[in-house]
């Protein structure tokens, strides 16, 4: 669900780990532990791999020691802010088929939601992810794609172009995203300011979401010491 998914969808991230979204139930955790054991992976930070911590929304961090795993790090999560539960994510997943293997990743709309964090680096990533999808499907977009772009595009010039091109669809999305009014009016400056405000609101919401979880993490660190 992390950097590798971003690369597949058209953004670019030099991620140093592999982020996995998993179903956190007893049966699947047993399977995950077996796979981690094969990779000779060990937990490198709090919390330990327990369902209750995954259910809280915390990530569990591992490093692999198997020689073929090249010291890779793996982060595991099962719950993310603003993103549906695993069953819905799995039903909407995208599968990329390669010659000798396939990779399941979050659907693009889900990945974009998961990237709406408090970190600076995630926001240009969201812009690239949506831009890439826009340019790839511009010639004959589905209604679902047009609505997705209207909800998520972060490039002001493209959003103006889109809102004016699909003037019959945009009004239906304005209730969800009021800044589309600036896009429809072609007001670049107002739109850029509104996009900035939109980002700040999401970042603040992410900080608020993480506040109790960070307290939980601090308690776990203290308990470990």
């Amino acid at each position: 669900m992390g950097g590798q998914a971003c690369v597949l969808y058209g953004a670019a991230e030099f991620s140093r780990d592999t982020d996995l979204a998993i179903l956190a139930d007893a049966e699947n955790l047993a399977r995950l532990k077996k796979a981690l054991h094969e990779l000779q992976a060990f937990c490198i930070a709090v919390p330990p791999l327990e369902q209750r911590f995954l259910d809280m929304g915390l990530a569990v961090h591992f490093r692999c020691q198997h020689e073929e795993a090249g010291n890779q790090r793996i982060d595991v999560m099962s719950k993310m802010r603003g993103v549906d539960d695993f069953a819905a994510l799995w039903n909407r997943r995208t599968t990329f088929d390669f010659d000798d293997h396939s990779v399941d990743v979050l659907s693009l709309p889900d990945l974009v939601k998961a990237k709406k964090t408090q970190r600076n680096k995630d926001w240009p990533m969201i812009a690239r992810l949506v831009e890439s999808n826009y340019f790839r499907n511009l010639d004959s977009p589905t209604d679902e794609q047009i609505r997705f772009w209207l909800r998520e595009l972060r490039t002001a010039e493209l959003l103006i172009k889109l809102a004016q091109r699909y003037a019959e669809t945009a009004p239906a999305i304005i209730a969800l995203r009021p800044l589309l009014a600036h896009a429809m009016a072609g007001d670049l400056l107002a739109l850029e300011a509104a996009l900035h405000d939109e980002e700040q609101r999401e970042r603040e919401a992410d900080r608020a979401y993480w506040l109790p979880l960070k307290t939980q993490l601090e308690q776990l660190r203290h308990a470990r010491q």
Partner: protein
Amino acid sequence: MADRAEIEEFCGPEWAEWYLMTPQERWEESAKLWATYLALGGSLDPEPDPQSPFFDEQEWRELFAHGGPGVRIVRRGGV
């Protein structure tokens, strides 16, 4: 797919080239970067990320600030 000129107008030539690749091509290019990074002694340890809710400076120092191989600035010009 939009044509290259249209993408370049908004994003510049490098991003246009990246967007125009297939997912497999991007995956392979990304793998090449990895190979180069590791061949140059790059580390898989995370960069300190104070904006991440998971980041704890003390924990990061204990786990990763070991003086091992990584990418460092060895010369900086101007600012």
